[in-house]
């Protein structure tokens, strides 16, 4: 459905997207994962024919983005990071306008809008001005806009950014429903989001693809160590050395006022660590399991890819 072929986009001397190639099949939900400035948005803008590629090309449903932009645009729904809304329009008026410019047949437009409004949970908001809607509802109007003409491919740039947790769950649910008969590309920098919604993840960093895999495989790699934060009263250097000698502890690092202790996920060494601290005659002030932040996970992933 989507074939990206050695795509490169440069802004002057800066290379935003560097020679990336990938394919997305029909019915797949693919997540673009990467930190801000990785090139996710740029890639999406090229795929939607908003920006020209410097080199390389892409085909969507068999149409080249450079040779046949109108055909490509007919087949994609695009939700940019900032939903493209006219604040002075009412929701229904806005969707009517979208139906016209997206080429929905006038006879079908009315019925289509009624369907979309139900699907996106906007039934009781159709007569409101978009400028008066909350951020969550605006995001839904943005989604409605992207799917109104029933496109084969939907491209969404950070569809859940800025929403509250309940809204995020709703939007993800909606994306999964949509994806049943369509191809979806979405970008995010939130890892669990990818896990929950996508069949496949493309990790992109400094304009390059660093990993393409299923979320299960990727997270398995990241979850193979557990990290605890340990705070003690006593000499921190002595404690660090003592803990490092416990069998199974893979790494001990000092952080500002405590220690980070890592061990493999399958073991539970918390008892051994606390026992060792007590043996040293020190006080155990705090001990808690820590989740790895995205930066660390991302870092781990990029490192993993280089080693492999």
């Amino acid at each position, binding site marked *: 459905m989507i074939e990206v072929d050695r795509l490169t986009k440069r802004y002057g001397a800066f290379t935003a997207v560097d020679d990336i190639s990938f394919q997305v099949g029909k019915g797949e939900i693919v997540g673009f994962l990467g930190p801000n400035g990785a090139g996710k948005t740029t890639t999406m803008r090229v795929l*939607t024919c*908003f920006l020209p590629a410097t080199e390389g090309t892409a085909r969507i449903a068999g149409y080249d983005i450079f040779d046949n932009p109108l055909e490509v645009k007919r087949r994609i729904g695009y939700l940019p990071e900032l939903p*493209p809304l006219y604040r002075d329009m009412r929701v229904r008026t806005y969707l009517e306008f979208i139906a016209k410019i997206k080429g929905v047949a006038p006879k079908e437009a009315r019925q289509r809008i009624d369907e979309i409004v139900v699907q996106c949970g906007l039934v009781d908001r159709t007569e409101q001005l978009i400028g008066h809607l909350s951020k969550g509802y605006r995001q839904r109007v943005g989604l409605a806009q992207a799917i109104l003409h029933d496109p084969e491919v939907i491209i969404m740039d950070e569809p859940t950014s800025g929403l509250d947790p309940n809204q995020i769950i709703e939007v993800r649910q909606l994306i999964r429903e949509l994806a049943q008969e369509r191809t979806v590309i979405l970008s995010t920098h939130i890892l669990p989001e990818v896990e929950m919604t996508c069949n496949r993840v493309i990790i992109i960093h400094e304009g390059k693809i660093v990993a393409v895999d299923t979320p299960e495989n990727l997270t398995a790699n990241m979850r193979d160590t557990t990290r605890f934060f340990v705070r003690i009263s006593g000499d921190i250097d002595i404690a660090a050395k003592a803990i490092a000698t416990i069998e199974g502890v893979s790494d001990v690092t000092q952080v500002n006022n405590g220690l980070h202790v890592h061990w493999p996920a399958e073991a539970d060494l918390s008892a051994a660590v606390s026992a060792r601290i007590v043996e040293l005659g020190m006080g155990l002030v705090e001990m808690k399991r820590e989740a790895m932040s995205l930066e660390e996970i991302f870092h781990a992933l990029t490192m993993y890819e280089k080693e492999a």
Partner: protein
Amino acid sequence: MGNVMAIFGKEMRSYFGSPIAYVMAGVFLLFSGFVFRNQLLEFHDMAVYLKLAEREEKILLNVNTEVVTPFFEFQTFIWMIVIPMLTMRLYAEEKRGGTYELLMTSPITSAQILMGKFLACYVLYLLIEAMAFGYIGVLSMYAQLDWGPVFSGALAVVLIGATFISVGILASSLTENQIIAAVLSFFFLILLWIIDWAARFASDIFFVILKFLSLIEHTRDMIHGVVDTHDVVFFISAAAFFLFLTHTVLESRKWRA
């Protein structure tokens, strides 16, 4: 054509759904009405004076040259201030609000978007102009008008409006800041307006060129009742030229760097 109408409809709704159309129509009608009234009073004074003087020789006092001509001349001047405020939002607002991305990723061409926007602004212009023309309608009930120069003056205003609007749209397409768009169009319009002052001190070929480029120069004859095809062609091709430039600006974003 459907796409052009979709954009046209959206822009019209935006003009009339916000205060812009009403405020700008109000400003224009107020100032042009003020000038019209002043010209009329002046005409009245002159008529009374001539009557009192009971001069032997007959002096022709013409309502066309004393009222209608200055009225149209002043209108083009007010439009030069009002039009940048009507055009400034056309592209700048879309770029700022992110909706430009929506338009450019929809199956609709830049030319269709441009035509829709131009037509919407032009129709609004003609609507306001038609209201101002109502003043002359009132005048015609009390005075014997020579309709030829009236219509040629109206034609000049109709033609120069298309040029003004296309300059304003070009400025709007160059930036995402509405204020800058408005300032740029003022600059262009005033430049094209006063360019013939520079002509006065230029020699030979430069004199001809500068004179030719001046907008005011091309309206002068028409407002006084002489419709020359060369002026008509000038305005139509100037509007087409600025629209073409706008289209090129918009399309240049798609060129491969």
